[in-house]
C-alpha cells in the first residue's frame, strides 16, 4: 500500500444531519427527469418527443456538437414533458415510469476481452459515457481523446457527503468490471484514491487493475481535482478523465448484466431531515415521495441535490441531479437578523475566529442559506489560499477570470481547477464573491478560445 498523502489545507464544515448508515425503503418515485443543465457546456438535441415510449437505456437526447454522446432514460415509461426555460432552453425531460422497468438490451461481455474501441462504443451507445468527465474544463469527456490517466476518488469529504464505502456495499463485482472497462480506455493508469479514515471496507483496497493512492486531510481532499494535482497535475494539452465510484458500478453493470441500470443509493441528510439515512433509488428520481413525511417542518426549507457547497437547489417536487448521490435539506434563512454582524455568534460557523463559535470546534452547526452580508469588492486577502490545497494562486486566478485575460488564466492554472475545487474559497469569502460561477465562466471562455 502506498503511503498516505496528507493534504494540509482545507476546511471541514461540520453540519448537523449526517445520514446514518441504514438503508431505508422509500416509496417508488413515479416520475424521473434528466436535466441537460447538469452538463456544463452541453447543447442538447432531443431524440424523443412528448408521449414517446422509452426503455431504460434509450437515448433521450444527445450532444449537438458530439452526436455520439447520448443521454439515456434511467427508467422505462412515457416521456410526459419537456420543460423549457428562457429562450427555449431545455431544462428537464420528464418520464413517467412503468411499474416494472424494461431495459434496452446491450452486449454482455467481460470487458477484459474487449478492445478499447468496443468498450467506448458500448458506453456511447448506452449513454453511460455521460458519466465520464474530463479535466481540464470539467465537462463530459471527448470520445476521441485518450486520457493520460483516469482518476477515481473513493471518498467524499464534502459536508454531509454520502459514505462511498456504504454506497458500494454489495457491488464489488460490478465495481471491478467497471474498473476493468476503464483500464482499457487509457494508456496510463487508473488511479483509485482512498482515505484510510473513510475507506474501511475492502472494496477499494482489494480492487484490481488500478493503482490505489491514499490521501488524508480536510475537505477538499476528497475532490478528485485535488488528488490529480498531487498525483499528476494537469498541464496544457493534457487530458485526464474522472468518474465517481457509483458510476463505475453503472459501467460494470452494463458489461455484467447488459443493461443500463442506474439505480443507486442516495443519502438524505441535512439539519431539516428528521432521520437522515440512505435510500435506494434510481438516478433522476423525483424527490417528492422521498421527502414526504421526512422533514421537520418548522421552518422554510431549501432542498439541494448534492452537497451544500456544489449542489443545485431543487424544489420539493424536483429531481435528483445527474451525478448526485446526496440530497441535503437546510433552512432557507431568508430573514433579517438584528445586528447580526455584531453578535457573539455561537451558532455561526466561520473559518476565521471572529465569531465565538470557534470555542466549540466539534459542534455540528445548523447553517442556512443566508449570505451573512452583502457582496463587496475584494478586500481580504489570503483567505482563499487557506482552503485550496493546490499550487495555484486562487485569488489571482479569479481576478484574471474577472478581466477575461485568457493567457493569464492559462498560466495561473485554469486547466487544473473545477468549480467544485474552489467551492470552499467561495464559502469563506468575506466579500461574498461567486467564485464557482466565475471559475465556470473562465472555463467556458477557455473552451471557446481554445477550440
Amino acid at each position: 500500500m502506498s503511503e498516505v498523502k496528507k493534504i494540509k489545507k482545507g476546511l471541514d464544515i461540520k453540519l448537523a444531519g449526517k445520514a446514518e448508515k441504514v438503508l431505508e425503503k422509500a416509496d417508488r418515485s413515479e416520475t424521473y427527469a434528466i436535466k441537460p443543465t447538469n452538463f456544463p457546456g452541453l447543447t442538447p438535441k432531443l431524440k424523443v418527443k412528448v408521449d414517446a415510449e422509452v426503455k431504460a437505456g434509450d437515448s433521450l437526447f444527445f450532444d449537438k456538437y458530439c452526436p455520439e454522446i447520448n443521454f439515456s432514460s434511467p427508467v422505462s415509461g412515457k416521456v410526459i414533458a419537456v420543460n423549457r426555460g428562457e429562450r427555449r432552453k431545455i431544462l428537464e425531460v420528464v418520464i413517467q415510469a412503468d411499474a416494472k422497468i424494461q431495459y434496452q438490451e446491450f452486449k454482455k461481455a467481460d470487458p477484459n476481452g474487449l478492445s478499447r474501441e468496443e468498450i467506448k462504443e458500448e458506453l456511447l451507445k448506452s449513454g453511460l459515457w455521460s458519466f465520464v468527465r474530463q479535466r481540464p474544463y470539467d465537462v463530459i469527456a471527448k470520445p476521441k481523446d485518450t486520457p493520460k490517466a483516469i482518476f477515481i476518488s473513493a471518498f467524499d469529504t464534502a459536508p454531509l457527503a454520502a459514505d462511498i464505502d456504504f454506497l458500494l456495499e454489495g457491488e464489488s463485482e460490478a465495481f471491478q468490471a467497471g474498473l476493468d472497462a476503464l483500464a482499457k480506455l487509457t494508456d496510463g493508469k487508473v488511479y483509485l484514491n482512498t482515505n484510510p479514515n473513510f475507506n474501511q471496507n475492502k472494496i477499494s483496497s482489494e480492487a484490481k487493475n488500478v493503482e490505489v493512492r491514499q490521501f488524508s486531510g480536510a475537505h477538499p481532499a476528497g475532490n478528485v481535482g485535488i488528488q490529480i494535482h498531487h498525483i499528476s497535475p494537469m498541464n496544457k494539452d493534457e487530458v485526464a478523465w474522472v468518474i465517481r465510484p457509483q458510476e463505475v458500478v453503472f459501467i460494470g453493470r452494463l458489461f455484467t448484466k447488459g443493461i443500463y441500470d442506474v439505480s443507486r443509493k442516495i443519502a438524505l441528510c441535512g439539519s431539516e431531515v428528521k432521520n437522515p439515512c440512505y435510500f435506494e433509488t434510481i438516478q433522476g428520481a423525483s424527490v417528492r415521495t422521498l421527502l414526504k413525511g421526512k422533514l421537520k417542518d418548522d421552518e422554510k426549507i431549501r432542498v439541494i441535490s448534492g452537497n451544500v457547497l456544489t449542489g443545485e437547489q431543487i424544489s420539493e417536487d424536483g429531481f435528483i441531479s445527474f451525478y448526485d448521490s446526496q440530497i441535503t435539506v437546510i433552512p432557507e434563512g431568508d430573514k433579517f437578523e438584528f445586528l447580526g454582524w455584531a453578535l457573539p455568534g455561537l451558532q455561526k460557523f466561520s473559518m476565521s475566529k471572529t465569531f465565538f463559535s470557534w470555542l466549540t470546534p466539534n459542534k455540528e452547526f445548523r447553517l442556512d442559506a443566508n449570505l451573512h452580508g452583502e457582496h463587496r469588492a475584494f478586500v481580504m486577502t489570503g483567505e482563499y489560499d487557506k482552503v485550496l490545497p493546490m499550487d495555484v494562486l486562487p485569488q489571482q486566478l479569479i481576478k484574471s477570470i474577472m478581466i477575461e485575460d485568457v493567457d493569464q488564466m492559462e498560466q495561473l492554472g485554469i486547466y487544473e481547477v473545477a468549480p467544485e475545487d474552489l467551492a470552499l474559497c467561495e464559502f469563506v469569502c468575506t466579500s461574498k464573491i461567486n467564485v464557482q460561477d466565475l471559475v465556470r465562466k473562465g472555463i467556458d471562455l477557455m473552451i471557446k478560445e481554445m477550440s
Partner: protein
Amino acid sequence: MKALRKFLDKKKPLFLKGGKFAKLQSSFEAFESFLFVPDITSHNGTHIKDAIDLKRTMSIVVMALIPALLFGIYNTGYQHFLSLDLINTTSFMDICIYGLIEILPIIIVSYVVGLGIEFAFAQMRGHQVNEGFLVSGMLIPLIMPVGAPLWMVAVSTAFAVVIGKEVFGGTGMNIWNPALIARAFFFFAYPSKMSGEAVWIAEKADSFSGATPLAHAANLVDATSTEAANIYQTHLSDVWNMFVGLIPGSIGETSTIAILIGAVVLIATGVGSWKIIVSVFAGGYVMGMLFNLIGGNAYMELIPAWQHLIMGGFAFGAVFMATDPVSGAQTARGKIIYGFLIGFLAVLIRVLNAGFPEAMMLAILFMNTFAPLIDHYVVQGNIKRRLKRVKVSA
C-alpha cells in the same frame, strides 16, 4: 426589534426605485444593513456561507484599536499634566477626562468628514456604502498629533478619502493606505503641526521638552560623544516607559503594549496577517542590527536594534497600517517580503535621513507602491514552477 424591522419595511419603498427618496437609496441601505444583516440568500454556488462579512471584519479591527485608543486618551492627559508638573496631584479620572476632551473631537471630525464623503460618493455612483472607512476613520485620529487643529484633520481626511480612495474606485481599489495618505498629507501640508516640540502634548508648559523620542534620537547623529551620552541618558534610556507608552507621540502610537494587544486580536481572529506583522518587526530588527554593527554615529551605535521597534510609529505601523489587505501585498510569500522591506526601510530612513525622523509612514506608503510588483514576481514564480513541470513530465 420587530417594531424596528416593521418600521424599516414600511419606509423601504420610499427609498427604492420610483420612491420619494430613491436618490438616498444607498444611505438607507447602509443604515438598514447596519441594523439588520440582510435577508439575502445564496442562489448559485455554495448554499451556505461563512458567517463573516466585511462589517464583522472591520469591527474586529476597530476593536483591536481600542487598547491603543484608550491608552492614547490616558497618555494625552498624562503628558499634559506631567508637563505642568501636576501629575502627582491629578486623579486618574481627571487625566482620562482631559484626554477624552482633547481626542474625542478629532475622532468625531474624522468620522463625520470621512463617512460623509463616502456616503456622498456611494450615493452618486448608486453603489452600496462599503465598510472600509470604519477602520480608516479610527486610524486617522490615532496617528495625528494631539495638537492637530480640527480643520486640518478634516482637510486631511477629505484628501485621503477623495484622492487616496474614491478616485481609484472606492474600497478595495485604492493603491495606498488611506489613513496614511491622510497623515502624509498632513505632514507635508502643515509640517509645523506634525514636527517639533509643540504639537505632541496638549497645552504643555513652555519649559517642558515635548519632543518625541525619535526627535531626540535624530539629534544623536550630529552629537559629540558627550552630548550623545547625555541625550541618550535623559531622553532615550527609559525604555520601559517607551514600551508602555508614556512618551510624547501621535495619539495612538506610543504604547507598544496596547498595540501588541491589538496585534494578538488581529492574529488570533485571522483578520490581520501575522506574516506581515512578524516580518515588519523582523525587517526593522535586522536593519537595526546592521546599524549597530556598522556604527558610524551615535544614533547607529547607541540605539539597540530592538529599541527601534518600540519607538515612534513603528509598532503601530507594523500592526495596523502595513496589514491593510488592500494596499499591501496579496500573496503569501509577497506578504513576507513586503513586511520585511517595510521594517527595513523604516529604520533605514529614520536613521539616515534626519528630515524624516518618523519614517514608518513613508516606508509603508513606499512599499504600498511596490506591493503589486512584489506580487507580480511571486505570481511569476508560481507560473514558472508550473511551466517547469511540463518539461519534467515531457
